Structure formats: C-alpha cells, structure tokens
C-alpha cells in the first residue's frame, strides 16, 4: 500500500527526515515511536501533503507517486491524518464540515453524495459507537471542545470517512484512560484486511489497546530499529537512549 524509500524532508533549511524507509501493506498496523524532535510529526505532515517542506525521496501509495498529489487528492484516495492538535475553526458548524468533507471525497471517487438525512443517520450511528455526544456536532468545529472531545472528533471523522491509510499523530496525548479506551475501540473497529494504520506515539500505553503488527523506532530522522509489538515494551523499560 505504502512504500517509502529514502525520504528526506527539510524545513527552513533544517533537515528533519534524513532518509527514512518504511513499507506498509494492506491490513497492517505500524507504530512509530521516538523521542521529541525525532521527526514523527514531520513524517505525518509530509505524508498528508502539508506545504512548507522541501521533500525528496520516493513515496509510492497505491502505485502512485504520493508526493505529486495535492493535499485534498491524498484525502480523496484514502489517506487520513488524525491531528495531534486538531484546529479550532470558528464559525464552521461541525456537522456541515463533516458532510462537506464526506461528500467531497465521495464526489472525487465518483460515488453518490449523501443527502442531509442519509448523512445524519450515518453520523448518529458512528457517534453512538464512539460514545460521542451528538450535541457537540452542532457546535462550531473544535471550538471550546475539551482535549478528549477534539481527539474523539478526529476518530469520528476517521470512521465516517473510512480511509485506507490512517495516520494517528499522537492521538493518545492528553487523553484520560476512559477516552483512550473509546478512541482505541474506534480504531480497532476500523481494522480490516484493506485498511492500514500508522500510529505515532511517545508511549507504549496506546499500544496496549491497539496492538500493532510492527513497531519502528524513529531517532534523528531515521528508523533505527524495527520489530514486533514486543519492541514497544522493551523501549518502555530501557528508553530511547539505549538505541541512539
């Protein structure tokens, strides 16, 4: 599904990613762990197309050159980034935003767009699965949401848009145990043979709930070690120091 070869990215003349290699196949869950400043968020930004980076290397996604695609084209083709800090967008109703987003993606795929009633039905169902208070959806997007509500809203968007490749950028940060469980259940419900996940996290805690197939350690812009889920436990006890 995703093949990354020798990916380099710099911003303001500072190289952040220094030749990163990674392959994700359909149905796999990959976790990327690493200390602050190792390039985790840069990786998620570059994969979703954020402007401002100068990028080189080869990134194939569903046999296309991902780096040639615009931000919204990547979304249309099934890439979803759950933001570490979801933005507050004043004056934009959450429900309208969700419907605009879903229909933009459906339209790009040549599928029939949902009308208001079909959409509300879908959103109700997904919100109740995530134990997400529907009332929040009539409020302005992320405005005045608690940290937990913002993260749940990201997962709700993910479950409505049903992406092929979901990138979770420190979705666990700022979540209490109950919210972490709900978010993890949401992610697990989306796991399938076709959909893949790239989970970026500092801590092993999230990985107790979402069991990864592979764990990679990102230090100083490169993946320095890869392994199975047991690697996360090892990191938790020994720290990153032992690897750098």
């Amino acid at each position, binding site marked *: 599904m995703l093949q990354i070869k020798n990916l380099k990215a710099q911003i303001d003349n500072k190289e952040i990613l220094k030749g990163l290699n990674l392959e994700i196949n359909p149905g796999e869950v990959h976790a990327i762990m690493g200390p602050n400043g190792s390039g985790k968020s840069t990786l998620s930004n570059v994969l979703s*197309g954020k402007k401002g980076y100068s990028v080189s290397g080869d990134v194939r996604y569903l046999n296309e050159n991902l780096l040639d695609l615009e*931000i*919204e084209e990547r*979304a249309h083709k099934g890439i979803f980034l759950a933001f570490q800090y979801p933005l507050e967008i*004043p*004056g*934009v109703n959450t429900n309208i935003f969700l419907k605009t987003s879903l229909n*933009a993606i459906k339209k*790009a795929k040549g599928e029939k767009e949902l009308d208001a009633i079909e959409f509300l039905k879908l959103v109700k169902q997904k919100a109740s699965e995530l134990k997400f208070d529907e009332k929040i959806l009539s409020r302005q997007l992320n405005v005045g949401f608690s940290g937990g509500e913002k993260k749940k809203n990201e997962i709700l968007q993910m479950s409505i*848009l049903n992406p092929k490749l979901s990138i979770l950028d420190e979705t666990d940060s700022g979540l209490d145990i109950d919210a972490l469980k709900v978010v993890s259940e949401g992610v697990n419900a989306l796991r399938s043979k076709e959909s893949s996940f790239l989970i970026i996290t500092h801590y092993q805690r999230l990985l107790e709930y979402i069991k990864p197939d592979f764990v990679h350690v990102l230090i100083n812009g490169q993946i320095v070690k890869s392994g199975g889920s047991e690697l996360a436990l090892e990191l938790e006890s020994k720290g990153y120091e032992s690897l750098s």
Partner: protein
Amino acid sequence: MIEQLKIDFDKIVGSLELSNENIESRKKNFNQFIESGFPNKRIEDWKFSDLNQIISSNIKNLHFHSDLELSKIDETIFIDKFAHNKIVFLNGIISNIDFNQEDETKVLLTRDLNQNENINEVNPLVSLNNALTASYIRITVKENYSLNRPVIIYNITTKDLKSTALNLKTDIVLEKNSSLKVINLFDDNSENNFINIVQNFDIAQDAILKNYKIDHKINSNIKYCYNNINLKKNSISENFIFSMGSKFIKNEINCNLNDEYSSAFINGILNLTNSQHHEIKTNINHLAENTKSYQLIKSVLNDNAKGIYQGKIYVDSKAQKTNGYQLSKALLLNENTEFDGKPELEIYADDVKCSHGATSGNLDEDAIFYLMSRGLSHQQSKELLINGFLLDAVEKITDIEIKDLIKNMIGITE
C-alpha cells in the same frame, strides 16, 4: 461645478411647493456646502476617504436635477422571502408606498417637505442634502404600536437616470414603547452616480428600532449615508450594515444615548473585491448614566479593495456606568488590500467600562491544511473559513428573517 449646482438648486426649489421658511433654510444649507465643498483627506474624518477626489475622478458632470420622468419599477427585485411594507425611492423620487400590513391610524406617513426638520451644521454633505432633497418621507410609529411586518425602503436607480447625483431623505419617529424594523436595500442599475442619503431617527422611551442596511449588488455608484439616531430612556437601537455592492460607500452613524438605560448596537460586514472602497464611521455619544454601546465590524478584503472603520466612543462626564465596546477584525486575502482602523475613545467620566480591539491578517494556513486534509479543495476551505469568520457578526442580527436573508446573500449555509 458650482455654477451647475446653483442652476440645479434654483430648479429644484422652483419645482417644489415650499414654505418661505423652508426655502431660507435650504439657502443657508446650500451656502454652507458651497463654502466647504466635498470633504477631502485634509479633514480628519475623511483622511482615509478623499470624497472630493473620488467624485471628481468618477463623475464628469455632477448635476442634481432632472425633469421628472418616472421609470417603471422592476418588481422582481422585491424581496419575496417574507411579507413586508414597502417604500420605493426610484431614481431619488418616492414612487410607491405600500403599508397594507399595518393599522393606518398607528403608522403615520408624510411626504410634506415643509415638515422635515433638518439636522443642521453636521457636515457639508448633510447640508447639501438639506438644500437639494426633492423627495422625502417621514414614518411616525404611534405610542405602544409595533409594526406587524418590517419596512423595506428600496433605493432603486435605473439605467435611464438622467441626473448624476441624488439626495434621499427619511425621518423615522418612534413614539413611546413602539417598535420598528427597517431595511434599506439598494438596487443600483445606473452607473457612476453620487447618492447622498440622510436618515434621522428619534426613538422615544422604551421604543426599539432595528435598522438594517443592505448594499449587496455590485455597482459603480458612490454613496454617502448619514444616520443620526437619538435615543431616550430605556430605548434600543440595533443597526447592521452589510456593505459589499458599491464602488464607494461611507456609512456614518451618529448615535446619541441621551437618557439612562438606552443602548446602541452597531454591527457590520465589509465584503469587498476589485477596487471597492468602503468605510464605516461611527460616533457613539454616551450622554447619560448606565448607557450601553456595542460594535462589531468584520471585513473581508480581496484584490485591491480598501476597507475602513473609524469608531468613536465619547463618554460625557455625566455618563457614569457607561459600558462601551468595539471590535474590528479584518481578513486581508491579498497583499494589495488595505484596511485602516481608527478606534477613538474620549472619556470624561471615571466609572466606566470601555474597550476596543482591532486585528487584521490573512487566513490561517494551518486551518486550510486541516480542511484540505479532509478532502476539501483550497477554494472550498477558503470559503468555509471566510464564512465562519463573518458568521459571528451576522449572528448579531436579532431578526431571524433578516438574518437569513443576509446569510443567503453572503452564501453562508447552515
């Protein structure tokens, strides 16, 4: 120009049935205008909008008089979303009045120019209007009466308008405990005209005025609109200015909070493209204790547009416990746009709460990235953010029908 104006003055005064007193007052006002001419940027209140220069570079032969020749009203421009009372100014002349939604003993209408009480010595443009107005209406709402439906004043110009300049005048009197919603709606089909509008509002105790201005249809006219509002005890004036159609418009509101517990709200939107140049200028005068004012102006500027907000709050030494607030936020979508904000607070009382704020900037790139990462195009993301930016000003409109009308005109969907 002066020679032409003198000819127009004589023709206009000669064509109307005016009392000697009225003619004398007009002469005085006319001379005041002749002495000062159109305001230019050397005058502090006009430093961002040099009207003299704007008029001379856009209008070749300025003349105010043309022989009456009524055009037909294009009724398709009437708002059909809700029932309303109508006053139609067609090329500066009142051509249609329809108040069949109301009790006619409670809403008095007069067009007698001799009954118009001029507000004098405000500025040269108001003087010019006092001198040359040919068509006028006064609406008086009797004590304890609330109109069933809003009043829409249609200000229409047609392509066959012969003069290059118009003066319109309206007086609105709200007696005790009465209420009125009025919308001034512009529909300009003429080109390169100067339209000078003066409206005077007298709001008695416990009365409520809702005053909305809608200039949404793109046109090449140059407008000045002066509103003078006097508020008595416990009365309210809610004003909203939706400014996006004219080439140039300056909306000036002078509001006197004369008695205790009176309050004024002035909110507005400047939504400009190309080389449009729009200004909102307010003077809020807190002249008694426990008075309140609130102003929120949101501006979105594109291309080479220029937006201006000059908001003044004056607090008299008698006006303790005043609560005054103003905020201006501008989105500059292009580096060729210009926004000038000049907040002024002049406070002579010591127990007051007054604040002001102003911001300007571009759209948040991170917000655009967030929306695009959800599949929205750049254009869709921009529109969503701009509408979101404007929404809180529109939400200040307390009348739901009119709020929805304006939302529709901007393209805000919910």
